[in-house]
């Protein structure tokens, strides 16, 4: 079978993941610059990366040449993490607005098994919901307060939502990346329903429901109306858009944001996010640079906020950096075996390709095969307002831990 994979904009992690298709007797070609593609008849076209309105023509060209068009990864299907830039007026477009009839495979990183099955055709088994396989148990009692992941780490049994962290597991299917296994709330990259963010907003609003709401009396005789000032509960959720619409802002029915920003799309994705989300996002969208990008950001903050880092942690981080280089080599060589081998090694330390296990001050969960978790354990920390920088990035956060401004060096 003749498969061509096209990479549009942004992160190229899903794109490179398709190297693994080579293990399935498929004739696979990775095309990183679809603009220059001349066009020829193909069996299957796989599209990855986020789309912009100007990509429409190229896409239609691909569609006219292919028997089957598959959108692979959240960036293409729902706008993905880059879709958050729409909050600041970007125009990231889900494929459904250009080619509604395309096949869609959600996920960040999307699963190669699912892609293989879709290419081959036939029924794909519906995976169970994430909560069914999660080892944490929920009670879904009303919350008294909302926590952030910088406050608590210890509890290994209670559902993240019961702790007040916002976990999207309810609307997600089970997946390979499984952030929940690595001390990270489900990001919700594989939703089972449309407009999952809007639904989660309703659900979480209910969960917070029995905490008193600030109201005020109206001068017209209406008894109560919502006061406009924030109360504790809403203040404890400083980034609703980033938390509920992390992957689906362009498809959620929400309007495009109106905040004007001169920054690049990547910078716009980061502004407004929370400090604890920062490494998780870079892990998601960094492509083949995700490890170095994540670690440089973490180290910048650690240095500025004086968070202690153990020797063991440093060693693991060094190892991750060298694995990243190996991975690049494997990609350059288009070597599926090697690629698989290296990603497995990365997963062993970082949990998954989204680096869920990597955090400020250490790692969230024990690394397989390592002796003493205390040597490299991440601890709760306090937010320190200020500006942080290293060679690649410069960012400032406010007192709530929201990233106010970020500059990423060209070419990084």
């Amino acid at each position, binding site marked *: 079978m003749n498969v061509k994979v096209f990479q549009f904009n942004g992160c190229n992690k899903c794109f490179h993941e398709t190297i693994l298709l080579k293990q399935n007797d498929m004739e696979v070609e990775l095309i990183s610059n679809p603009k220059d593609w001349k066009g020829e008849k193909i069996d299957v076209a796989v599209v990855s990366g986020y789309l912009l309105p100007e990509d429409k023509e190229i896409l239609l060209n691909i569609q006219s040449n292919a028997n089957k068009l598959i959108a692979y990864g959240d960036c293409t299907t729902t706008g993905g993490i880059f879709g958050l830039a729409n909050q600041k007026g970007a125009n990231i477009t889900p494929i459904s607005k250009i080619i509604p009839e395309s096949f869609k495979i959600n996920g960040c990183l999307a699963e190669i098994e699912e892609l293989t099955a879709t290419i081959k055709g036939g029924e794909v088994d519906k995976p169970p919901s994430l909560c069914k396989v999660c080892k944490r148990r929920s009670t879904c009692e009303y919350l008294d307060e909302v926590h952030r992941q910088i406050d608590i780490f210890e509890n290994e049994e209670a559902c993240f939502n019961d702790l007040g962290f916002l976990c999207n597991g*309810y609307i997600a299917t089970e997946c390979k990346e499984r952030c929940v296994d690595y001390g990270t709330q489900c990001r919700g990259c594989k939703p089972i329903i449309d407009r*999952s963010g809007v639904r989660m907003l309703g659900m979480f609003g*209910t969960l917070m429901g029995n905490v008193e709401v600030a109201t005020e009396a109206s001068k017209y005789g209406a008894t109560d109306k919502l006061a406009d000032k924030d109360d504790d509960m809403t203040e404890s959720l400083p980034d609703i858009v980033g938390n509920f619409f992390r992957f689906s802002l362009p498809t959620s029915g929400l309007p495009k944001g109106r905040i004007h920003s001169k920054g690049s799309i990547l910078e716009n994705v980061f502004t407004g996010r929370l400090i604890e989300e920062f490494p998780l996002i870079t892990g998601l969208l960094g492509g083949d640079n995700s490890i170095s990008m994540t670690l440089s950001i973490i180290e910048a903050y650690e240095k500025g906020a004086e968070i202690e880092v153990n020797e063991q942690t440093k060693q693991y981080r060094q190892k991750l950096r060298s694995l990243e280089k190996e991975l690049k080599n494997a990609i350059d060589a288009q070597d599926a075996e090697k690629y698989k081998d290296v990603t497995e090694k990365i997963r062993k330390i970082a949990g998954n390709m989204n680096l869920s296990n990597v955090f400020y001050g250490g790692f969230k969960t024990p690394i397989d095969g390592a002796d003493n978790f205390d040597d490299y354990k991440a601890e709760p920390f306090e937010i320190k307002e200020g500006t942080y920088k290293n060679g690649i990035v410069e960012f400032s956060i406010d007192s709530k831990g929201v990233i106010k401004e970020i500059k990423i060096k060209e070419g990084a």
Partner: protein
Amino acid sequence: MTVKDEKIKNSELAEGSQEKMGFPEDEPRIGVYVCHCGHNIAGTVDVAEVAESASNLPNVVEAKHYMFMCSKPGVQLLKDDIKEKGVNRTVVASCSKNQHGRTFARTIEEMGLNKHLHQQVNVREFCSWVHKKDKDKATEKAKKLVEAGVNRARKLEEVETKKIRTTKAALVIGAGIAGLRATYDIAELGIPVYLIERNSTIGGHMTRLNKTFPTNECPQCSISPLTNGVANHPLVELYTNAQIKSVEGSMGNYEIEVEIKPRYVKDNCTSCGECEANCPVEVPSEWDKGMSTRGAIYKAYPQAIPATYVRSKKDCIECNTCINICPVQAVDFSQEPETKTFKVGSIVVAAGYEEYDPTEIDAYHYGQEGYDDIITQLQLERMLGPTSMTGSEVMRPSDGKIPKKVVMIQCVGSRNEQVGNKYCTGVCCKFATKNAGLVKDMYPDADVTICYIDMRTPGLNFEEYYKAAQEKGVRYIRGRPSEILKDPISGDLSVIVEDTLSQTPLKLKADLVVLSAAMVPPEGIGPLGSKLKILRSKEGFFKEFHIKMNPTASSKGGIYLAGTIQGPKDISETVAHAGNAAALAAQPLVKGYIEKEMLIPYIDYDLCMDCGMCITACNPAAISMNEDGRPDVNEVACKSCGICMPACPTGAIQLLNFRDDQLLDEIVPIAGGGVVCNE
């Protein structure tokens, strides 16, 4: 027997099977009827235009306008169209649902359609009457409202009304004045009642009182006809020392497990008192609020019902004296706790209140060593009472002397945000006035002072009662005492208060300080609430269904609240409240069945993640996990509110006829008809 009774008797009563009636198979054929309501609607809205525009909507087979839709010929229009034109859903644009919505629903029901297939559109109250000045806009609005109604009607589903058989028995929790009143009232309607009391005697707080305001009559005399009436009622089964273990079921059919602790004294006890007289143990009496002592085997007070003695296992030293001394060999240490299961249709919760424990307020030193002469109003009642240890005299607990100066402090534990009780108990002003007056009557020379924040004596006869106390010489000082001091040398107490009327700081000498402590929820209300699955107010009492219109129903169908478990009340309020609870509880039991519209949510189990959010959100506790760990809706307990819908993260639970897609169809024309994109 009327025809209707006959019908009910002959009809098969459904018993629990869950069968969705669902979407009728026929293609929707909608009839739209716009009412003129004389000039009420037609004077503002162009009804002909509205009917005309409605006729162009999909599935609409008839669109008419008529002078008075609710009149006989108007209703006949509906009937004729259903018969002749095959209309199977009706939309009437006229007045509110409450006014004539039912008229039309009944009409289509007569014609063999389900009444839920009628959609009422309100173009009078919501449109013509309020937009008189702008006829064009009113007409436009009416068109949109009718379009929304038609959209809604298109997807309406039939809703079944089921009759659920009820178990003809009731359970009353708590045998205080509220529980007794409710029990007696229900039993007198011929319904068997199980009365559960956690203490060893019935009568509750009322039996502790000395006199009741405003008539100063003897509470024991007022309550005893009721206690005896209940204890001897052929339809009442009384269980003391009993507590609820578990509650299953829903409105009309509950199954309750009750654990009955043994008395260790058999029923042949003659109440002679030999056992207690010879018991070597001496502990403070709970019933007497610590103002007297009792043995390990005891009777709370001489007139206690049941009269059988009871042994407190935790106080007993097992010397066996009582076993040997009992003339009828009634004492039996081998008795075991017993669990009983009752099947009832209604539950009345009358678990009462507790006097606030003032030890929490450090400045008042209640219960601290060396401060024995600070007591609560209930303790004072026990001193004044006819069976008191002091012979009904007021005596200082420290030295037994009759106090010359008595100071009463109001609002101890109520109207106090520091201890978390914002509410006013509402009865303390009255009983402090009563007790102050009584003390003044007994000792005309004594100084009796009441320190209050606000004097609250509303209601018939109470202002006179308050005046009478003032005339007797009871001194009222407006001000909340900041502290009670004790002179380190003389040991005399003094109350520090600022008289806020004259703005003078005062230091009142006191031989005896009486704290008017608040009424607070009784101990164990939390576990009881979670067993019954009913909600509590933020003050901690059980929450009533509606504060004005339904003050005795709880959040769950079939469970009713009587008396102070719902909030502080005096005796007369409690009795009235309990009577209402009894009437409501008895209704479905007398009738024998409950009629329930199956307007309930349905769960799409393919989407459901079993997270349990709907269970938390469901206030009447109608949703629970079944054996497979999946949520299940109890169709009888459901109150059709739909709160579960937005709580569901996947939208799996949807209330019948208010589903997301049905609401969307209605919203679209109302929101302006959607956005047309030309691409």
